[in-house]
């Protein structure tokens, strides 16, 4: 499946949580899902989004790791922390702008989505992408993604931090990138979120 790309399309997500079930089936982390599943704005909408690791070109999780435990392979996949090195300090969990790393307290180790490395490295599709009924999580060739109404972006702005990724996010055609001001999403005391 050389040349295939991972595309996340929140507009297609129907909240069925099949991806979570599929992820938990994996032998390498049985019973623990690596998907960051969330509601976009629960008070206003029923929209959900399932996030897998975006596999950043310069992974923030790896850059903040004080134990040098998170590594990015030559194929651009950012792997779970190396067990002998991880000190379970939670830095990566706090640093990742997409909320992907998960601290496994029982194992005292951070684990994260590695695009099902045991599968994709031998030419199979990731678990979540195989089961997603609406293909909100899709592992497809770029030509197929181009046929969709949304356009893929790999550029994300979080305030001044610009992040480029391996995994693409499908966004409305009039935008080039996803850009948010982090301060807008900070909860400040008694302020109510009406908007």
């Amino acid at each position: 499946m050389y040349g295939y790309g991972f595309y996340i399309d929140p507009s297609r997500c129907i909240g069925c949580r099949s991806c979570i079930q599929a992820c938990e089936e994996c032998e390498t982390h049985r019973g623990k899902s690596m998907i960051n599943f969330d509601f976009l704005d629960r008070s206003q909408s029923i929209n959900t989004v399932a996030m897998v690791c975006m596999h950043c070109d310069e992974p923030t999780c790896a850059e903040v790791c004080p134990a040098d435990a998170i590594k990015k392979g030559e194929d651009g996949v950012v792997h779970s922390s190396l067990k002998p090195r991880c000190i379970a300090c939670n830095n990566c969990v706090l640093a990742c702008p997409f909320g992907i790393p998960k601290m496994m307290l029982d194992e005292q180790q951070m684990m994260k989505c590695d695009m099902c490395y045991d599968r994709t490295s031998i030419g199979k599709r990731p678990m979540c992408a195989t089961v997603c009924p609406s293909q909100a999580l899709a592992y497809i060739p770029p030509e197929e993604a181009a046929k969709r109404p949304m356009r893929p972006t790999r550029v994300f702005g979080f305030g001044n931090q610009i992040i480029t990724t391996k995994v693409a996010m499908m966004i409305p055609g009039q935008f080039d990138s996803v850009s948010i001001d982090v301060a807008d999403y900070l909860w400040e005391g008694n302020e109510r979120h009406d908007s």
Partner: protein
Amino acid sequence: MTPEEASRPLWQDEFSVHSADERYVTRRQFTKFLVLTSLAMFVGQVWILVKSWFARQPEALPHQVVARKGEIEVGEVKLFTYPTAQDHCIMVRTAPDVYVAYSQKCTHLSCAVYYSKESNRLLCPCHNGFFSVDDGSVLAGPPPRSLPKVLIAVRGDELVATGIREA
């Protein structure tokens, strides 16, 4: 090196997030490793040399009366300790006027050697090591070195141990 790489802080190179960089060894790193290990080996060799040179300096051992003339018959032995109570030695009268003494500790695995009158040799029973009774040299068996020889001087009627000559 691209300008972008040059402007990167040092820690990003030293602790790269890419696993390929972690395994990659530059020629300069490898050369540095070779030079430094060779240097360390050389220093180690010099250290061993200096240590062994100092160890070879003869140390003054106390003189100790170990026996009297005529105390043992020809072909008989006397056991004694020299220079400390933990260093067991064996003395043999090989001829009416010849007394020889050696450390009793076999140079192989430190078993006690004894004198075999029949074969006129010093024998270590543990692994069948044989030493010459004349100079303590190895005749047969696994011992790697001769037995340390206890120097015996005759002073009047007394046999005095004056030192030890290592093989």
